[in-house]
């Protein structure tokens, strides 16, 4: 038997991805449906000499991983709904101080305590705008365990590349479902490590002076360069500043480093998309339903395909517009009240051709839920 094949929960696939990416520090606080990630890492991390700590709450957990990232470690925390809300202030701090980290949100039904043991996809907008102020963010998602594994690695890679928090927006169904996972050999998937300064001891290091390509080489806390990290707007030394030029320059840098690289960050999959007249746009566990429908319709020679989004933020506007250019209609399949729908409508040439097939009752969206909407769109009656 090949020992690299496993039959696991989505949450376990996430842990395997994190280990493959080189995680060595995790801090968390238990919450359904993400708890397995903490439980598994409490065992796996010390086995590889890494550190696991259960903190007093979600705020402390995210703060602890940020501290650990600054000493040069690859860090992650995992949570769900209410815990994700608690982490928002520190996520903004990580954006401002440009601290690489991965934050997993295994989504459940909300708002508030909501529907803890049931699936939801209601935190899409919160992942983008949960913390205050103009900032940028990267958020990835996945619909099956192989992709959960790969997107987790991508999340670490992007966090280290762009010095930013990356949010992994999974959902309860993917997190708890069991399926096959093949763990690739070492080096099969590239791993990105952070850029570290080559400046020697005694040479002035400017922690917040971007290179021409927008990247900022880091220096580990405890190393030769001592510098200041702050959540206040700051100059190239990391010293607080409210000089209008510095303020404007920093805000542009923080946003541009992501938006200028949207083509590098965008991740998606096409299922039967070529020549599709009807396109289902979906992500996470709802994409499984969409793919199922497309497969059946194609068998009947119907031109219907799926655009599966794997990066939700920055929203891949150009790509979505391009893919949907020739579609008669676009149906967004999601488990919220239209959070991705709004993004698709905003970027597509003919927003009146975009429709929503959703479910918000804590149950997985089924093929018949989607088919009943499709029938109307395709003019085949109600």
């Amino acid at each position, binding site marked *: 038997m090949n020992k690299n094949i496993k039959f696991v929960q989505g949450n376990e696939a996430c842990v395997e991805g994190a280990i493959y990416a080189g995680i060595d520090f995790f801090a968390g606080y238990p919450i359904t449906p993400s708890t397995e990630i903490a439980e598994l890492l409490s065992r796996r991390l010390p086995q590889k000499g890494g550190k696991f700590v259960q903190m007093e709450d979600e*705020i402390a957990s995210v703060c602890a991983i940020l501290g650990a990232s*600054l000493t040069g470690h690859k860090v992650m925390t995992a949570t769900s709904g209410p815990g994700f809300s608690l982490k928002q202030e520190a996520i903004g701090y990580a954006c401002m101080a440009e601290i690489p980290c991965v934050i997993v949100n295994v989504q459940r039904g909300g708002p508030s305590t909501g529907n803890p043991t049931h699936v939801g996809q209601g935190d899409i907008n919160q992942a983008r705008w949960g913390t205050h102020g103009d900032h940028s963010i990267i958020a990835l998602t996945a619909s099956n365990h192989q992709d959960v594994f790969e997107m987790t690695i991508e999340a670490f890679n992007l966090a280290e590349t762009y010095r930013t928090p990356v949010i992994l927006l999974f959902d309860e169904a993917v997190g708890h479902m069991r399926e096959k996972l093949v763990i690739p050999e070492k080096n099969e998937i590239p791993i990105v490590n952070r850029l570290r300064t080559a400046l020697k001891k005694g040479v002035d290091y400017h922690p917040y002076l971007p290179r021409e390509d927008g990247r900022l080489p880091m220096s580990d806390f405890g190393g030769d360069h001592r510098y200041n990290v702050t959540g206040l707007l700051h100059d190239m030394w990391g*010293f607080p500043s409210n000089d209008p030029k510095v303020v404007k320059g920093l805000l542009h840098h923080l946003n541009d480093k992501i938006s200028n690289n949207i083509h590098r960050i965008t991740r998606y999959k096409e299922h039967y998309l070529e020549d599709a007249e009807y396109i289902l746009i979906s992500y996470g566990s709802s994409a499984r339903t969409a793919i199922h429908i497309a497969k059946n319709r194609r068998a009947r020679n119907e031109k219907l395909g799926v655009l599966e989004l794997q990066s939700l933020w920055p929203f891949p506007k150009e790509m979505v517009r391009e893919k949907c250019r020739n579609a008669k209609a676009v149906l967004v399949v999601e488990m919220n009240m239209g959070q991705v729908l709004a993004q698709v409508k905003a970027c597509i040439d003919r927003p009146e051709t975009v429709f929503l097939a959703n479910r918000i009752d804590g149950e997985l969206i089924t093929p018949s839920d989607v088919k009943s909407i499709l029938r109307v769109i395709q003019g085949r009656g109600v």
Partner: protein
Amino acid sequence: MQAKQYIRERFFPHMWCAGCGHGIVLNSLLRAVDQLGLDKNNVVMVSGIGCSARISGYVDFHSLHTIHGRALAFAAGVKFSKPELKLIVPMGDGDALAIGGNHFIHAARRNMDITAIVMNNRIYGMTGGQFSPLTGVDKNTSTTPFSNIDNSFDTVELATAAGATFVARTTTYHVLEMTALLKKAIEHKGFSVIEILSQCPTQYGRKNKEGDAPAMLDHFREMTAKADSEKIKKNPGLISRGIFVDRSDKPEYCEQYEKIIQKAQKAIKGKQ
């Protein structure tokens, strides 16, 4: 001591008001670090938000100026990920014990080797003089226009009950004592808490008619006495200064975790 050796001159002048006690804390702290002969590359100062928290920007250590109340949580991440570093966490009374109260008690319980300094001016200086959990009943602040009915914490009792393994108190009047206690706190292996009564003439002093900075310092001299001294025995109403807890029976967290790593690795070796 050459203070310049430990400060970032580029970041001066500092933002504190004339007469603020926080500068005195900075002075004593640098003396403590100097006398201990710590390597600057080995010291990390983590702070939250407040006038007090700005102290981290002025020192030439690795410095992490975080968000309000969360300094100890960030510090835990720094320390746990790199236990060879010395962690010093200065906090205001609001920062440490209001918004940061939960992190404070859990840091004490966990007993990671971190030095927490509570710079207690009994008020929210930075936001303009609102009451804190250390203000005290009947005091005047900008959010108690009809007098304060909020009871106070006693930092020493709280830290002790929560399990801190070193607990001390002093004031900005007693600068030599402060340096000596800071040295002990920093050297202590485990979670150490030192409360330093620090004057805020601009907010607390003005609102409570305590006079200017020298008058407030004088007041610290009058209202405190060394723990176990004759003076405090005769005047139990005074606030005692000195060391209240100094224990080594409770293991330090990072050291304990090293044992967990060994256990975990032994368990996989056993399976192979």
